[in-house]
């Protein structure tokens, strides 16, 4: 089944890392994205670039910034195909940010 892994981290965490760690993070994320079980992986631009959109009375309304005002922000997502939750959790634990205080939320995708 498919699982979405939503990656949350403090903004600028990667920039704050020592050079060697930062390179390792990039390499590990690339390796994960290359895994055969990975359907798609994306890193997002910083939260300041976010625009929230809703429609009210036929008008499209926009607000600046991310939807939730939290310390950790959504920084990327990965869609994977895994046999079960244990396999999905193993892949989630390979997202490098989990070693630096970040969090990966794993959610099964509704089957179509």
């Amino acid at each position: 089944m498919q699982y979405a892994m939503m990656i949350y981290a403090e903004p600028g965490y990667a920039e704050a890392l020592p050079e060697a760690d930062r390179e390792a993070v990039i390499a590990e994320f690339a390796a994960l994205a290359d895994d055969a079980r990975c359907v798609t992986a994306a890193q997002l631009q910083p939260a300041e670039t976010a625009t929230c959109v809703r429609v009210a009375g036929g008008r499209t309304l926009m607000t600046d910034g991310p939807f939730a005002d939290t310390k950790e922000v959504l920084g990327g997502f990965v869609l994977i195909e895994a046999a079960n939750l244990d396999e999905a959790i193993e892949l989630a634990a390979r997202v490098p940010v989990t070693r630096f205080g970040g969090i990966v939320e794993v959610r099964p995708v509704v089957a179509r």
Partner: protein
Amino acid sequence: MLASLVGFLGDFDKAEEAAQEAFAIAAERWPKKGEGEAGGMPANPGAWLVTTARNRAIDRIRRERTLAEKIHLLPVPETVMDVMDEFDDTVIKDERLELIFTCCHPALPLEGQVALTLRALGGLETAEIARAFLVSEETMKRRLSRAKAKIKATGIPFAVPAAHLLPDRLDAVLAVIYLIYNEGYSGRVDLGAEAIRLGRVLAALMPDEPEAHGLLALMMIHHARRRARFSGEDLVLLEDQDRSLWDHAQIAAGRAVLDRAVALRGRGAYVIQAAIASLQTAEQIDWPQVAELYRRLAELTGSAVVELNRAAALAQAGDPAAALRAVDRLDLDGYLYFHSTRGELLRRLGRHDEARAAYRRALELATSTPERRFLTRRLAQL
């Protein structure tokens, strides 16, 4: 029975439904002794129930499949169909171990793990579990169905975890069983005995895991002393307990389980705690050895509470001054037993004013009646 059915059907709700049907048939047929083939109690009632439940479930799946073929809806899950092809009436595989790991999956909320383990493996009724945890039956029912829904929706596997995941996952299982054991002190259902039963099942299913034996031994030895732990409403300390109230057969049985854990080179936290409990039931308690075991346990767990116990053992070994020095290094100001232990050590050292202050602080933190009564008595004795 439920474990076998969940394993077979891959679905809690279907398994429970099938089990209920089988029980209903049994209730109708078994009492009719001597009324031909269909009546009377079968030679092996357990196997009969599982087989009947499985057959009922298969009938149901076949009915659903026929329906699905007719209306091209309701696809029957592949896995269930695969198992059905290999179906053999005579072999009932023991799938309790898989069920234990599913129920105690760390992706489930802890209270859900506990409830599910008791329901699916302990065979307790929802109402009984609700009573034990002092919540309404409705709340417990919701807790169980949320946990079951999460297992299904998220694909929590019905399997023993892979070898590289096993140590962590076994820890989670042991923690759930030990939590159930410890809840036994506050609830109304005998969860202590239930936890021991679960521990016995786990140790039998994982005979090479020292910590499974360690936990079982720990619970058995503690449980054997339960009748001596209270005198009416009052808490009785180990050294003042009436040993004739101990269940000596269970202590011996617990020690045998501990021997097995040690023979497997068990050095884990449960094995050490069981060894301590075993030493404490000896005629002459070897306190220096108890203190040494607490030192190793503290190394493993990094727990200040364990350090406190080590200090208490040092005092029993005859060195209250060293014990007090060890206690005063700990940062446990909000902990009742920190203050009661300090009070006891100060009393032994003849520093009665300080002892009284420590006992008063402990009394402020005490919430249960037996604890309050115990501390009040200690204060009065000073």
